């Protein structure tokens, strides 16, 4: 068959718009997800029972259902609750931040649990309150221990943003799909999208590996 590769430069502007949306969705979900996930992790490790249980339910719920289902939940629920038609692009920000928080929570929990108990005692002995202890002693170390895991999860998140295609959002895949159907260039567009995702995810995961080797704490 004849492939028309010039279809890609012709569509470059629109594809780039979609790509920028994919990136901003990834960045937003990663930042909000890590902050919210850290709070959830502290709740899961807390000795306050109701807090602990609520956080566990939250995390286990989101880890047991498909992301795609959650995308539909919020796509349908956000307009129902707010009364506004917020659109696929904006509802996806909410979806990903809330969903990814559950995954980042588990990473942060592992990080916090990897800190020797003596560190907590040392902070307390210095007269730190719980909040100060977390902020100055535990979290900086926990964070450093799990930076590679957080980055790896962010690469997975970047790939998963392609799922917003199913609610019609114009991410990289959505943009390519729209052009592909307009110009009948399915093969060229889908292959191009695959190459873009591969090159970015592959190079980033290589970079994370190199970083991991550098920052690993030797005990």
């Amino acid at each position: 068959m004849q492939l028309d590769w010039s279809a890609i430069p012709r569509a470059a502007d629109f594809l780039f718009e979609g790509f920028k949306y994919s990136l901003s969705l990834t960045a937003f979900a990663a930042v909000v997800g890590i902050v919210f996930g850290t709070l959830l992790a502290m709740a899961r490790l807390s000795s306050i029972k109701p807090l602990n249980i609520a956080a566990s339910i939250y995390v286990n719920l989101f880890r047991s259902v498909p992301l795609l289902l959650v995308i539909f939940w919020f796509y349908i629920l956000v307009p129902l609750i707010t009364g506004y038609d917020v659109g696929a692009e904006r509802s996806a920000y909410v979806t990903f931040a809330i969903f990814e928080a559950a995954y980042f929570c588990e990473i942060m929990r592992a990080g916090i649990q990897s800190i020797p108990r003596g560190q907590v005692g040392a902070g307390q002995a210095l007269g730190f309150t719980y909040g100060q202890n977390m902020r100055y002693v535990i979290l900086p170390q926990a964070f450093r221990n799990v930076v590679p895991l957080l980055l790896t999860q962010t690469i997975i998140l970047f790939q998963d943003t392609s799922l917003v295609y199913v609610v019609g959002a114009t991410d990289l895949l959505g943009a390519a799909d729209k052009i592909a159907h307009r110009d009948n260039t399915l093969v060229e567009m889908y292959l191009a999208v695959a190459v873009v995702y591969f090159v970015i995810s592959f190079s980033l995961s290589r970079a994370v590996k190199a970083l991991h080797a550098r920052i690993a704490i030797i005990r």
Partner: protein
Amino acid sequence: MGHYQWNWAIILEEVYGTGEYYYQWLITGLGWTVATALSAWVIALVLGSLIGTARTAPIKWLATLATAYVELFRNIPLIVQLFLWFFVLPEVVPERLGLWMKQDMPLPEFFTAMIGLGLFTAARVAEQVRTGILALSRGQKNAGLALGLTLPQTYRYVLLPMAFRIVIPPLTSEFMNVFKNSAVALAIGLTELTFQMRQITGEYAPANPIEVMTMVSAIYLVLAFSVNRLMAFIERRVQVPGYISGGK
């Protein structure tokens, strides 16, 4: 939200103008979800074990090939992979084969989803199996070789039986992922559970999306929990005495 008309019995009602009931649609969806996930899991386990083992083999070209497979399938989103199998592959293979795939192949959505999801998951299983093999002490392999076993025999009788037991917990997660990821097949038109939910809440019961979404989510929770229990049972049955995970 104030005017939402709750109706949990929606599930028992007839789908307007079809002679079928909503619960029948959900059951059909569940059937495709389970069929796709289980068959993809079989592919993933077999292929993933081979590739994971190959990555640890002292045969350079084989290890490189296996690594290339893992990197390729891990770094492209699943939905894009399914599109490649479903829309792109028939266009780039020889014309007669492509025509057959487009026109005569039975259950095209199901087989594409099964193979696509299977190959995707195989890359992830391969990583777990490889980690399991590398976690064994070097002495195990040397001991096998010193006994006069060939390298394949060492893998078969010494390394793999241990490695597989070690990686049951991460494999449990992958098994659960396969069920969750099967939802992505709705993008190529497989009428699995999430597809049916979308169909019902979108076109047929737009007034009661919350009830339908809640039920579908509950079904996924039950699936995830069942897989988890099944794997915990297997883990207990095959535990190795003397290892931390194996109790006494």
